[in-house]
């Protein structure tokens, strides 16, 4: 009973504070810009009219904070010459059933899957036993795999096991890209950025692990690159910190006109006896130029269930504010009840955007106090997330 009283008092105190102080709350993982930039509007067709939208959510469907993607690779790429394929390209595998895809560069001879031969210790393996599956460019493309012309894929038969093979393509000529994918391998390279959205100049941290059954392999060599949507690359230097591979890097201020995400590419290798183990992993992040920001204040209209937020605009463009309204049920539990968004075109300067949740979206039995969560400010002209606040505000008097 005493605990209940304490919780009620604390809750009431929080509500009272929110009512008097209309500043948005911040948390450690929120994305908030401290500066603004003025960059031109990119080429393209953009909506200019203000648009608002809201709809009801099912309160029983819980929402969660999204977490960064963990890339897990069982594959690697290498480039080679036709002359190497004529003699026998060394391919090390760690598990049976490896898939090998060879793609010719411009001007190189096309590869037909029937022309590939597999050797072990210099001895040719019977072609009927070497590969369990093979596919031509036409077959792969018809299956929706958008491979380049002249590409072929073979799957080493499970019965051949793992280890070192030589792949021979007698008529290969020119340069080729070789992709080795080992779906059955327990050797993986994992890579994960510490967040999904960054602002230019922020600190990026990437953690990686080359492991066998998730146990780190000793002697791992690792390198990494950050690749912008325009293809510009930036080195990522990994350090071994008590067995954990970690790269920390200040993000560039590059303003890219290309839409799309930035790629984090990690390449790792290690030795396992005589075998050379390689893995390449990729994941993505977004790096935004701070073209606009919320000024940190808000006004709440309890009758309309509407939040109004001033924004500061550094670059002309279309900006969207979105958020989720949580309301308190009869059981005292706060649940998501409505989603709202508004976007408009702004010139450099000040403006404001509203989140009109609309009382009609409030389910029966739900009311104050309300919470505004998952507030996001996006630049729709440049496809960038500029700001996010997970628990932005708590308003309204408890019933």
């Amino acid at each position, binding site marked *: 009973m005493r605990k209940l009283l304490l919780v009620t008092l604390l809750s009431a105190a929080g509500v009272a504070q929110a009512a008097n102080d209309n500043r948005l709350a911040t948390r450690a993982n929120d994305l908030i810009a401290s500066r603004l930039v003025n960059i031109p509007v990119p080429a*393209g*067709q953009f*909506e200019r009219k203000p*648009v608002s*939208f809201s709809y009801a*959510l*099912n309160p029983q469907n819980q*929402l*969660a904070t*999204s977490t960064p*993607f963990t*890339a897990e690779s069982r594959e690697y*790429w290498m*480039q080679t010459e036709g002359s190497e394929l004529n003699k026998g390209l060394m391919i090390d595998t760690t598990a049976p*059933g490896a*898939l090998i895809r060879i*793609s*010719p*560069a*411009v001007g190189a001879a096309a590869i037909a899957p029937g022309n590939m031969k597999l050797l072990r210790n210099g001895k040719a393996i019977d072609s009927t036993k070497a590969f369990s*599956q*093979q*596919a031509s460019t*036409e*077959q*792969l493309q*018809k*299956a*929706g*795999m*958008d*491979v380049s012309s002249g590409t072929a*894929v073979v*799957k080493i038969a499970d019965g051949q096991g793992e280890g070192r093979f030589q792949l021979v393509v007698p008529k290969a000529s020119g*340069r080729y*890209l070789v*992709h080795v*994918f080992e779906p059955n391998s327990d050797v993986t390279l994992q890579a994960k950025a510490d967040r*999904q*959205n960054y602002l230019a100049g922020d600190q990026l941290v990437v953690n990686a692990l080359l492991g066998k059954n998730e146990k780190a392999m000793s002697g791992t060599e690792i390198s990494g*690159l950050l*690749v912008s949507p325009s293809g510009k*690359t930036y080195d990522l230097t990994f350090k071994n910190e008590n067995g954990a591979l970690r790269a920390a890097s200040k993000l560039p201020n590059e303003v890219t006109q290309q*839409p*799309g*995400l930035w*790629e984090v*590419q990690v*390449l790792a290798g290690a030795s396992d006896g005589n075998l050379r183990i390689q893995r*390449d992993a990729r*994941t*993505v992040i977004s790096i935004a130029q701070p073209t606009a920001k919320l000024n940190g204040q808000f006004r709440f209209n309890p009758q309309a269930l509407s939040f109004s937020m001033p924004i500061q605009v550094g670059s002309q463009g279309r900006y*969207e504010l*979105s958020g989720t309204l949580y309301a308190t049920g009869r059981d005292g539990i706060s649940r998501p009840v409505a*989603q709202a*968004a*508004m*976007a408009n075109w702004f010139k450099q300067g000040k403006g404001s955007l509203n989140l009109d949740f609309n009382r009609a979206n409030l389910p029966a039995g739900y009311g104050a106090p309300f919470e505004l969560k998952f507030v996001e400010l996006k630049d*729709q002209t440049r496809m960038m*997330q500029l700001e996010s606040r997970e628990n932005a505000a708590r308003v309204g008097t408890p019933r």
Partner: protein
Amino acid sequence: MRYLFVFALLALSSLCSANTGVAFVHGTGNQTDAYNTYWQPTMVNNVRGGLANPANFVVINCDFTQYMWDSRAAGCLAGQLSSFISSKGITRLIVITHSNGGNVMRWIMSNPTWDSRFPNIISKVVRVNALAPSSAGTPLADAVTNGNVFETSLGWLLGYKSDAVKMQQVSWMSYYNSNYLFGTSGRPAQPKLFRSVVGTDVESAIWDSDSYCAGYTENVGLEITQAWLNSCSDGFLNCSSQSAAGSVWFNDKTRMAGGEPLSHNQSRRACFGLDSILRTDMSY
């Protein structure tokens, strides 16, 4: 009981007075004649035959080699849907998507403020029947986005991969699902029902006539691409990707004639009674 009867009558009368239409939204590719080449007439005509007015249909032709938000993708789709809605006076719109078409439609429903035409489209949509949607991307898109930057930096690119292929890499879709699209686990639901038909397997035995629906050679390729995928896949998409957004309407084997699976190519064609199920759905 009387109230229930009145409510049922009202619901029936509102359905009768409604003008229902269906839109067919293709997957990745730049289509100019999706009616003949992507869906094929048997599929389209059988499905639209279930409408009170079978003339209320549109087959979308857009450039879905672009990113989903591009004016040539979502913008084009919004334009064709808006024209269809206004020219036919559509009040209830059922959208049938295949593959990446589900992502473009989900873009419209998740980003209503992006384009002033989007809210009106959303208001008319009653549901999206997403056939094998690539909601969480596919490892095959990762595989064809040629290797790593060391290959590309050498200046011997093997060929430009479309933005749509890049976008359907697993890590990219994970980002967009978390930040721009609704309907996946932990994210707000979409404003309208988005339900998927999941293809769980591929059959390509030369002696099995079922392998020939939608083309035998296409299914042979799918058997091989399945090596990149989980044990449950339609040869192009893992089941987990097809069921990542919205709700699962049904898995292929539970509803298809003879318990047949739907490969990725078969889920856009009149195979194993799929067209009949979609036709029946037009009357609700």
